[in-house]
């Protein structure tokens, strides 16, 4: 096992463990922190894939900007610890529908994951064997504004709509 492969398992482990911790404990602040840790694991995987730009942007945007806002909200609203003990005590048949639907969803996703994993025989590890075509920032920008122009512009329009929507919803109704 090469050094790169070892690093892959370390980063992948961090990402998976972080994600599990997000849903696996009750304190919302710890959930936010766990997802940040998970993002760091993902960022490490991007570095291994010879995409340092994507790795750093992952940190700046997701771990830096978005999660700070999440943390801010959780702290400001003083979200209480989640307590599921009353549901845990209930007989499965009497638990609320949301819980049962969630369980069905979890089973479905587990099946999908198993199916996907059973078909990945020919794939390599998560470590890049050779430099992919899009690695430098300049190249990335060029591809983004030529080949993926439509998707890029549609995404930005979507984000603007979301921003305008948020402003409209948040402002006081004076009309």
């Amino acid at each position: 096992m090469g050094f790169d492969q070892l690093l892959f398992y370390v980063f992948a482990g961090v990402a998976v463990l972080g994600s599990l911790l997000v849903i696996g404990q009750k304190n919302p602040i710890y959930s936010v922190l766990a997802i940040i840790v998970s993002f760091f694991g993902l960022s490490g995987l991007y570095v291994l894939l010879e995409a340092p730009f994507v790795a750093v942007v992952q940190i700046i945007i997701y771990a830096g900007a978005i999660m700070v806002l999440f943390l801010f909200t959780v702290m400001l609203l003083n979200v209480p610890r989640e307590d599921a003990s009353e549901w845990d005590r209930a007989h499965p048949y009497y638990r609320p529908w949301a819980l049962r639907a969630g369980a069905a969803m979890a089973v479905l996703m587990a099946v999908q994951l198993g199916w996907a994993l059973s078909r990945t025989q020919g794939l390599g590890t998560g470590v890049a064997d050779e430099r992919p075509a899009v690695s430098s920032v300049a190249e990335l920008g060029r591809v983004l504004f030529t080949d993926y122009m439509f998707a890029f512009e549609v995404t930005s329009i979507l984000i603007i709509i979301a921003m305008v929507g948020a402003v409209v919803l948040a402002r006081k109704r004076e009309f």
Partner: protein
Amino acid sequence: MAGLVDWLTAPQTIFFLTVTMVVFVALQLSAAVMVYAERKVAAFMQQRYGPYLVGPKGLLQPIADIVKLVFKEELKPKAADTLLFAAAPVISAVAAFTAFAPVPFGASTTFFGLLPEPMPLMVADVNVAVLVIFAVTSMGVYGIVLAGWASNSKYALLGGLRSSAQMISYELAYGMALATVVMLAGSLSLREIVDSQSGYWLGFIPKWYVFINPISFLIFATAGVAETNRAPFDFPEAEQELVAGYHTEYSSMRFALFFLAEYINMVTVAAVVTNLYLGGWHGPFIPEAYGWIWFLIKLSVLCFGYLWLRWTLPRFRYDQLMSFGWKLLLPLATVNLLVSAAGVLYFGL
């Protein structure tokens, strides 16, 4: 095993480890120097003596401070979140140290012929260095926010919230100013940005970006002050309103780590400004190989500027800070970015 020994004894590895150690120790010492300088400059501006008892001219005062902090009792509020209360200062300090890693402080050197090929004087030569610094600095916010939350005290919480709001607001202008320089240099690597500033116009004006784009320099320097929570933007720790802000409940070494992080962040921002706008290690009279002397001179001047600001300007009001960031600095930075883009496009600066 033999491969490991070979790797460990290779000149490159030894050089790399040495540079890393030197940067690590120098950053810690710089915090001590900054503490002393701050107290002396403050004293000078307020017509007092400042520290003068410990050592000649009070030079050993920082060491006395450190000894005091190490031996102080570690206090923790009863209702504090144990894990995060301990983790917050560590996050702050780690982010502060890491942010300096991709900062070059001298020209490539063979170290008097000891190295087979020239190596840059920096810890990590990353080709997206500018973004790495940006990312790591934005991680520093978590230390402050978590300290505020974990302390379970209203002053600390308000300090932490203020700090996160402030840093988010100023990061935008900061990033815009950064993008301007990246565009002018056509690179995200700090080493290449510095190298693109070598040479002179008309034989005597150095080709520094501060002369091409002074507005971007001012925006970056201003946002840098806000990013490091220094006066006149030191809201997270506004004494009159918030006792000591996010570190109200901290004492002993945990408090010292926050203090250390603050001063190291200051040095890092000054170093980044030096590299981005002031030509890094390039300068007249001193040969390229000793460029780090120029770097230190520029760094010291900027750090003195920081101290000067703190003891000259009163603190803004909080709403003034927010409207200044969002309504003046950000639009100015955006317009500046567009104008520079047009300049690069049409004149190929």
